């Protein structure tokens, strides 16, 4: 009886301690930039988003980004309206896109030492309510205790049921777009 009490106290203490340290190692982004870039012979289209929130768990190598889709700002208002519309990204129904990734080769990053580390990230990307697996390279830069992350994702729109079947957008928007990710923690 006494033994179980002590054991449970130790267990509770251990769990609370580990969960505390786990939360202490989770960094929240201070600045982010997501850039959407599409290139076709007809035209280049770019949109920028500065309102994404991300976390980086340096002990588990977990990377999460929550992207508010209506924050993508285009040069032309009509493009922005197309992007948001039901036919394309349906941002009213799916206001956020999400990237959940894990650094596969976490052991080669030393978060305590200045340097630039190239890592493999694998995970899931959810856009327009559709989830697909992603595997991309990312660069983690450690500079005097500050951590930054850079990556580039190639997103095939059809995989996310974003289909530009007819009209001008089908000719002017690339089938695969480049999404550049930049985050400071």
């Amino acid at each position: 009886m006494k033994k179980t009490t002590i054991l449970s106290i130790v267990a509770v203490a251990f769990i609370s301690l580990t969960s505390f340290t786990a939360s202490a190692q989770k960094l929240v982004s201070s600045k982010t930039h997501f850039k959407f870039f599409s290139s076709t012979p007809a035209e280049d289209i770019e949109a920028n988003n500065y309102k994404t929130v991300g976390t980086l768990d340096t002990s588990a190598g977990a990377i999460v980004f929550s992207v508010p889709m209506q924050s993508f700002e285009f040069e032309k208002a009509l493009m922005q309206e197309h992007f948001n519309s039901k036919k394309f990204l349906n941002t009213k129904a799916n206001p956020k896109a999400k990237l959940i990734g894990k650094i596969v080769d976490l052991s080669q990053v030393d978060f305590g030492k200045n340097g630039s580390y190239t890592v493999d990230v694998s995970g899931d990307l959810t856009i327009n309510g559709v989830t697909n697996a992603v595997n991309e390279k990312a660069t983690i830069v450690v500079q005097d205790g500050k951590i930054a992350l850079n990556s580039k994702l190639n997103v095939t729109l059809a995989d996310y049921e974003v289909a530009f079947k007819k009209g001008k957008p089908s000719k002017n928007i690339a089938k695969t777009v480049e999404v550049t990710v930049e985050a400071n923690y």
Partner: protein
Amino acid sequence: MATKKKILKIALIVIGGGILIAVGIVFYMLNKPARDVQNTKTDYSYEASQIVNEYLTDAQTANDKYLDEAGNSKVLEISGIVAKISEDFNNQKVLLLKSVNDKAGVSCTFTSETNSKTSTVKVGDQITIKGVIRSGASYDEDLGMYENVIIEKSDIVSNK
């Protein structure tokens, strides 16, 4: 004969004029300038806590109410206490309006035109900003934290 010519001339002018107008409209549509949020009528005025709690209570209903299908979402005036002042990668000022007891706040991003208006703002100030809503507040399980209501194209309405 002369009247026939006259009719033909008028018809050509009308058709020509119509084509010109049509081309003009299409050209305008394709090159429509970005939405001028500050010169758009305010749809709703709230305290930061009110909109945060509305979203935390029922995000779906709130999204239906505030978000627009084409991204031209509601223009809001939000009053609250400045909890944090920062700057994003685009050198735009960001003010977080959040009261100490709330789980989330309202993150308001300014523009290159309105950035300078924040120069006198201090943490703890009670201010009112106007801007367009981009997304609501919610608890995100993957992030393990609450996300703020996002407002962009902000300007300061009053700073007491």
